[in-house]
């Protein structure tokens, strides 16, 4: 059983800009990712809760397992993006199975 080192990106952005951020991933050569919903949150842009009529404020979590090079490219795009739009990104070191897929 062979484990490979990769980077895990966890990106939280608001639903209206989701597709734009997904484009950052595909443009950086990332081959796959998963989008997860969220229930509530708080931060600089205010508080929101699912079902509370907060159109546009619902967040999406993008989970992606990527190579270091791809991670750097995505982070550079996000650094620029977050100058205008709210969001967070966290990078962590992980080990994955079938590393050739990522």
């Amino acid at each position, binding site marked *: 059983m062979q484990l490979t080192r990769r980077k895990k990106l966890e990106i939280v952005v*608001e639903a*209206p*800009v989701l597709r734009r951020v997904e484009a950052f991933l595909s443009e950086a050569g990332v081959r796959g990712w998963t989008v997860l919903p969220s229930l509530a949150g708080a931060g600089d842009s205010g508080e929101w809760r699912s*079902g509370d009529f907060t159109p*546009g404020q619902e967040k999406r979590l993008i989970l992606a397992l990527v190579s270091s090079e791809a991670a750097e490219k995505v982070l550079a795009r996000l650094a620029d993006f977050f100058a*205008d*739009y709210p969001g967070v990104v966290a990078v962590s070191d992980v080990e994955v199975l079938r590393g050739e897929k990522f």
Partner: protein
Amino acid sequence: MVDSLQLALTNLLTPAILFFLLGFGAGWFKSDLAVPEGAAKTLALVLMLSIGFKGGVEAARAGLSADFMRAAGLGLALSFGIPVIAFGVLRLISRLDRTTAAATAAHYGSVSIVTFVAGTEFLRVSGVPFGGYMVAVVALMETPAILSALILAGGGAPGRQGLRSELFREVALNGSVVLLIGAFLVGLLTGDAGMAKMEVFVGPVFQGVLVLFLLDMGLVAARRLSAARSLTLPLVGFALIMPLVSSALALTLALILGLAPGNAAVLAILAASASYIAVPAAMRIALPDADPGVYLTLSLAVTFPFNLVFGVPLYAAAAQAFIG
């Protein structure tokens, strides 16, 4: 005068308003009553579809008149123009930053479909006729305000970050607008034959959906209000007075243009209403720095209840007095 008061009280004693107040009370006292998010979105779709379809059928019966062109033109002008006035007032009386002021102003230039529903119900009960095509005017008034706000704020975020097409899609192809206009066209094309098929859905079922939707709105409005931290007296004052200013402006222009009193009343109600679904979502793309805590709370928790309970009978009475 007594007649109007009578009507206003009758307005309050309808299931729709009472369920709104129930939701408001439940939300205020922190009951765990809640309408699931998916359900609320479905209810909104049913509302849009029913209103559009009914409007189209009525327009098919009565035909589109010159009054429609005038009402549509005035509606568009109001949607573009009211944000400018609202922006000016906000910058004058409050300490809101330019971006949040512009975003808030956009809400007041746009419309609330539920306020339109409540308003037209009231007019129907009062025996005031208006054109079925006014639904199309509602759809037209939804999004121009977004563009006005973008100009007022000098917002560059969407352009800088390649979100122009997203914004364009929100403005021109907004979901609620597409459904509203689409349903209107379907009603227009199928007329009475179509209505025979849809009768139960857009009639009795619609009433139930409306009531559930208003229950949810009451819950949300109360929760928002009790959680609001950035509400100052000038802002609350703005949220209560701006609808009066907008409706007065709409009535004056309607009088000059020679619109029928019923249509003028509807335009006044639309001008006074503030969006809380289409515009807030667009604002997260157009003006992301604006504070949703301000614009959503004012629109949803202050202006909407005010219009629902006091505004609608007031604007209808004013339209009758000055134009009818």
